[in-house]
């Protein structure tokens, strides 16, 4: 008999991560002399990091079966195709 037990994540720690990342984002956008292209990359990276923390730990996607994760993952490549094809249309 197998036993599966998921221990709850430390939600307050995730909240602290999100708070610190938000402060870093705002500081990077306004207090630094980083070139625009690098700044965009850094800000998008921080936003994706924060979004992943919310999806994995608050929405519990990390602990869900793969079938359910797929429902959330499938639209992402479709979304990328939507944006890329529209950009190519404009070129």
């Amino acid at each position: 008999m197998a036993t599966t037990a998921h221990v709850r994540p430390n939600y307050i720690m995730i909240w602290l991560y999100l708070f610190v990342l938000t402060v870093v984002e705002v500081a990077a956008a306004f207090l630094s002399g980083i070139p625009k292209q690098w700044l965009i990359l850094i800000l998008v990276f921080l936003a994706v990091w924060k979004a992943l923390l919310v999806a994995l730990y608050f929405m519990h996607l990390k602990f869900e079966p793969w079938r359910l994760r797929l429902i959330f993952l499938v639209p992402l490549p479709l979304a990328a195709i939507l944006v890329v094809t529209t950009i190519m249309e404009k070129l």
Partner: protein
Amino acid sequence: MTHATHTADLMRPPVPAEPGAGVYSNKLGMWVFLASDVMFFTALIGSYIILRFGMTDAWAAPGAVLNVPLTGLNTFLLICSSVSMVKAYAAIADGKKYFLRKVAGKTLQDGGLKFWLLITIICGAGFVGVQVFEYITLVGHGLTPGGFREGSLMAEHAAADPVKYGAATAGLYGSTFFTMTGFHGFHVTCGVVSMTYLYFRKVLPEKYSPQDYRGIETIGLYWHFVDLVWIILFTIVYLI
């Protein structure tokens, strides 16, 4: 040999799962809705990216038109509401239906479902309130979905410094800003209304139990998704 799995799973309400899906139907339905909402917001964000980076004229600089510190605080408020939502979920999973309860040896009282969900509703309503205040202020200063209103403060600033205020792209700036943040604000409002309904119809009469708290988990998924979308919107609309 038979293989039995005993699930002592703290992450899921112990209600029967739909065959094949592995989760109960309410949750599956919410995930399918969220998948469709991903496409909806992708259309908005994708259009914004194409319109903005396809322009040869300058876009308004971050912070020139919008109040970033205020929206940064609002972002923090929404993140706080996400934490209180997940605490509400954890509370009912542990059978804590109460508001606050004293714990021996601790100064702070222990919050139950009633407490954490109320905090979530207050934070969510606060976010909408700040957004309404932001809209009123912006429109008052002259930013409308059609661009800078003639004779307004914004129009004067844009005339003095057309690059910083993106004078040539003000129409697109206004329309994309109000469309994206407006649809997100509508989602937040729907979430606050739904949680308030649940609070009075289900939570206060103590209809949820550790055996069945599907409503809390389902509205929680929606609420966290709304938070997730805002994290992306805040970065691309206010900071970049």
